[in-house]
Every structure is written in structure tokens, then in C-alpha cells.
């Protein structure tokens, strides 16, 4: 049964990854990143159950904390960029190039 969870986790992770790559709205990209993190969490929880060990859940817990911090900072950055460039497209912020 746990295998199904893991495959679901991989599927969600891949979908999140594709989302990061194809979307241009920075906020949506960010949501996709969150999706990937959640997929990871699912894998952790599943492994915790599989191995009869709470460490997996613990790590998932820490991942949530880090994700919360990350969201705060990430969104602040997006707001700052938006304020100066009036755009939330990740493609617009492409000055650092050849």
C-alpha cells in the first residue's frame, strides 16, 4: 500500500516541477514549489509508517517550518520586485545575463 503513496508523491513532485518550469507568474511558480515540498512531505510520512519510526514525521514537521519561513521571504521578495518593476513575471527579471 505504501508504494502507492510513494508513487503519488513522485507524481505530485513531477507535476510541481513542470509547473515551476512552464509558469511565468512568480506567485504561481512559488505555489508549484510548495506543491513539490508537500509531495516530499508525503513521502516522508509514508516512510515513517513503512519503517515504524517517527523520524520521517519529524522531518516533515521541520520541512513545514522551513516552508513557512521560505514563503514569507519569497513573497516579500516578489512584492519588492513587483513594486519596482510593476510585474510579477519571472522572465522580466532577466538582467543578469550575457
Amino acid at each position: 500500500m505504501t508504494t502507492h503513496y510513494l508513487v503519488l508523491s513522485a507524481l505530485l513532485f513531477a507535476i510541481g516541477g513542470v509547473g515551476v518550469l512552464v509558469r511565468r507568474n512568480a506567485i504561481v511558480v512559488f505555489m508549484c514549489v510548495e506543491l513539490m515540498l508537500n509531495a516530499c512531505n508525503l513521502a516522508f510520512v509514508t516512510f515513517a509508517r513503512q519503517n515504524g519510526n517517527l523520524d520521517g514525521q519529524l522531518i516533515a514537521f521541520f520541512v513545514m517550518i522551513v516552508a513557512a519561513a521560505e514563503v514569507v521571504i519569497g513573497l516579500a521578495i516578489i512584492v519588492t520586485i513587483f513594486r519596482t518593476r510593476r510585474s510579477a513575471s519571472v522572465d522580466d527579471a532577466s538582467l543578469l545575463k550575457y
Partner: protein
Amino acid sequence: MGESITFWVLAIVSVIAALGLVFSRRAVYSALMLGVVMLSLAVLYAVQDAPFLAAVQIIVYTGAVMMLFLFVLMLVGVDSSDSLVETIRGQRFWAIVGGVGFAVLLGLGIGNAVVGSPKGLAAATQAGNVPSLAQLIFTRHVFAFEVTSALLITAALGAMVLAHRERTEAKPTQKDLSRQRFVTFGRTGKNPAPLPGPGTYARHNAIDMPALLPDGSVSPLSVNRYIARYEESQGILSPEVAQVLEQEEAALRANGHSTPTVAEEARDGGPDTEPMDEDGVVAVPVVRPRGESVRESLSEEDGK
């Protein structure tokens, strides 16, 4: 059996929601789809003997993080929608190749990582899920836990610093503003006083009622252009207001654009008047989706 049903239902829901997250044009829909995925996952956590995480998932993610996302979305432009035209050559193709390949490889990889039936957490959580986790957090992982608190504080500070807008000049005081108004009056003859509210001396205290001067005539200052246009198109414009508008147009024709029009004056803090077009000519109000006119520049339209 019960778990299987739950899993399959939630798996299908979450995958569809995830795909919706990726492929919906509107950012708000994406956010809602993400919420669906998170809630599904919370249930799956609960099913897999992780009630604490399920609660945290709902509180932190679906509650706090999603709120934050929506908040920023509203700030940035909730009605913006993504153009589906890909500008980077090959990006979409390779992204999908990578995504499919990754999903297959990862599925094969970690799908095969599991050997045997799950041990279950009954042994590890004899004291209950939350106390057992708490014991781990406050004993073995107490240092990491403390560090996360530092991380959160740092993140809060960082967000404040990033979102803080520096004021580069002193805030104009009441006195400054008042002086500025009279300087403008001296230069252009613009009315420095507040505009009369609609309905002064009027028979009705409504916004579509122009203010009346003490002699009973209509005060041009108080005519709401939008409403006037609307009434004109509907053929219910009152004759007094129509007369005022005609006089104004005549004056406009005679003087060109130099005299300040009611419209311009109305723009500067007039009572409940919508902004007018630049040239001051009273124009038929354009009907747009609410917020679009202001948010236009905030949208994600390419080519900005």
C-alpha cells in the same frame, strides 16, 4: 479497505488539482487548487498515522501559507491571468519531457525502495502520536527545533525589511497641502475649497441630484459626469443639468482647453467622482471589469 478507498479518491483528486494548479490561467484558481491538494494531503497524513502533521498541515499550510499567497495575489493583481504563449524556445517541451521522465524514474526508484509490508507506527507511538513526537522534538532534536525558531524570527525580520518602503522626503503636512492648494488657485484659478456635496439645497439627498446654489440654479461643480452621461443615454437627464453641460461645452469651444473644467476639478478630491479621461472632455464611461482599469499595469501581460 477503507484506506484504499480514501487513498484512491484523494489521489485522483490531488493529482487533478495539481494539474489544475499548473494549467489554470488565473493565479487565484491555482491558489485554490493548491488548497485542494494540501487538504487532500492532510487527510492522507491522517490516514497514515500522522494526525499531528495533518493538523499542522491544515493550520499552517491551508491556513497561514495559503492566506499569505492569496493576500499577495490580491496585492499584486488578483484578476491577472497568464498568457499561455511560451516565449523561451523549447522550454515547454523539455519541461514536459523532464517532468514525465522524472515522474517515471522517481516512481520506479522509490516505488521499488519499499520492501515488505509497512511496520506501522503502533510501537513507536505507544504514548500517542503527539506526545511521542513532542518527546523527539524536545529531546533528540531540540537543537534543530531551537534553530528553526531563529530561522522563523529571521524570516519575519527579513520580510519586514524587504517589504518596507523607504520614504525619501518628509511627509507633507496639512499646512503644506493647504499652501499648495492656494498656490495652484493663484496660478490657475482652480477652486481651493472642497467641492459641494451632491444634494445641497436639493430636493433629494442623492448622489445623482446636483447641488443647488442659493439662487436655485444648478452648481456645475457638483454634477457627477458619469451619472450625467448615464442619465443622458437613458434619456432621464434633468433639464437643469443638461443646461449646465451645454453651457460648459460652449465655454470649452470658445476657450479651447485652457479653462479648468468641472471635470478636472472634480478629479481632485471631488465628492465621489470617478476619474475622467485625460482631455477633460466628458466621455461616455467605459464599462470594464472592476479593478482592471487600475490594475492594468499590475497584470502579467507580456510585453510590459
